[in-house]
């Protein structure tokens, strides 16, 4: 485990060195990323400025959900970039090379790409998260803070899982499926607001199919002491594990897909 982390570090060092050769494009990418999420955030603020509350949720409370969801996605985007460009690796047959090395292929795909340009969303999300935690008096050592951080990691795992599924499709077909991008960005848009404001269909989907609810809403209501409880209390405290479990399942699917890889003719 520790050893894998070190090798991951080596890969990342290589990737970073490559990206820093094109410093300008990294800075531009990060700025663009910051702008996009900035517009989103502005929309959120405008909404609350106008209505004060949404179904009894204050801005500071929604900010916690927003921060958690965005930091999760940003982490997944930074670490899981390789899966999102994975179809290229399959089309060109360069996946051969990964199979020839004595390491997990998913590990290598993740390690090969480390997306610095997405730090924009990360910074933004962290800023909002810190604001929310301070406003709620939660920025102090305690079980709540641990749950928040753990759930963010679990949420990152959930997003990673979606990326892995998206990449797995490339083993079977060369068509790219927009479906997964919709889940990812639809998911983060949805999760920026309390899940309780949506209809049953959407809520169930993000609870039982792609368990993004556990990235922020389920642990969030417990931490915030809000009445929208979901299931027993212990389940909320186990939120981080849900994301990890989802990721694990996705990796199993990947392992199956990998056996359908067909390389190229030359």
């Amino acid at each position, binding site marked *: 485990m520790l050893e894998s982390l070190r090798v991951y570090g*080596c890969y990342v060092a290589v990737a970073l060195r490559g990206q820093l050769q094109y410093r300008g494009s990294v800075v531009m990418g990060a700025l663009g990323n910051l702008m996009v999420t900035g517009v989103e955030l502005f929309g959120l603020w405008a909404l609350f400025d106008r209505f004060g509350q949404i179904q009894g949720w204050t801005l500071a409370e929604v900010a916690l959900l927003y921060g958690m969801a965005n930091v999760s996605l940003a982490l997944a985007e930074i670490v899981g970039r390789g899966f999102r460009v994975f179809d290229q690796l399959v089309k060109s047959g360069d996946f051969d090379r990964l199979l*020839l090395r*004595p*390491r997990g292929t998913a590990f290598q795909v993740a390690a090969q790409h480390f997306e610095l340009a997405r730090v924009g969303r990360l910074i933004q999300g962290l800023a909002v998260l810190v604001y929310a935690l301070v406003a709620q008096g939660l920025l102090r050592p305690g079980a709540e803070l641990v749950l928040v951080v753990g759930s963010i990691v679990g949420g990152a795992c959930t997003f990673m899982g979606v990326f892995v599924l998206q990449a797995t499709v490339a083993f079977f077909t060369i068509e790219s499926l927009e479906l997964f991008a919709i889940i990812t960005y639809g998911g983060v848009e949805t999760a920026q607001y309390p899940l309780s404001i949506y209809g049953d269909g959407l809520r169930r989907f993000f609870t039982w199919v792609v368990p993004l609810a556990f990235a922020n809403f389920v642990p969030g209501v417990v931490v915030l002491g809000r009445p929208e409880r979901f299931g027993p209390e212990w389940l909320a405290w186990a939120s981080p594990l849900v994301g990890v479990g989802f990721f694990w399942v996705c990796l199993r699917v990947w392992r199956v897909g990998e056996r359908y*890889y067909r390389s190229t003719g*030359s």
Partner: protein
Amino acid sequence: MAQIVVEDLRKRFVVAERRAGMLGALAGVVRRRHRVVEALAGVGFRVDEGELVGYIGPNGAGKSTTVKVLAGILVPDGGRCEVQGRVPWLERVEHVARIGVVFGQRTQLWWDLPVVESFELLREIYRVDRQQYRVRLDALVNALDVGAVLDVPVRQLSLGQRMRCDVVAALLHAPQLLFLDEPTIGLDAPAKLAVREFVRRLNRERGTTVILTTHDMDDIEALCSRVVVIDHGRISCDGSLDHLRERAGVGRRIIVDLERDEPLAPTDARVVSREGTRVVLAFDPVRTPAAALVARITREHAVRDLFVENPPIEEIVARLYGEADARGEAEPRPEPREDPS
């Protein structure tokens, strides 16, 4: 001990067929036509430890596909395949840690990295001890003469330099089994010789088993004691070079320079060509011992010069490939011979 056991290995590819033209493309959206390519149609052979086997065949015969299955890249549709006691695709990680693979067509190195940093990264990936790594790297760099390009990014290397670096990369973890898929493709004569000499020494001195795929028959002649010929996904011939010659039925040759322009037509040899006083005869060394034939010719004719040679391997291979083509794809093939005599 058998290091590679392959039996009745099968792999087919389903290829979507594009129809020509605009209308064809539209029709393709509605209904795709598929074509099945039988890349491996029941391949079988065994390779023992320390062998250096040439794996040859015409374009599209299934050589690279075989190597990819043996290396754990492709999962076959059927048949048995064990390498060093493991099924490659079932225990991929353990398997690839103990083999080396070079694909001449495609580098295994990191395009943007200086060569030596690629090596360093491989050291981490393969968990090679630092001390051992240093010793091995020194030896490999010396043997393949790549010391001067260690700090050059891979994308700036010439083909020959890159290929030699790829060979180094494939051996840093000291595998006992090495797959070389067209390692001399596009190399100039000195580079070919260097790679060839290195492979020979690796096999002789370290006892590394080598499977070599190539279209360069000089590679085969210089290196391989055993040749496996694949054609249309089936093994059509397996044995020593001599065995191959016998199969192709080209026999051995004797070239005679006569003193005078006189007829020469021994009963147990065939005249291949005649130019002035030079006569080329082909004979079957099993039925007619060369010594007897030479003795008879020199007794009956005034001979200025005379030498016996094996026909060039290109000719043999052309005969074998052509023969297979003439038989056609549909016809059953003779049982593949499995004795590496």
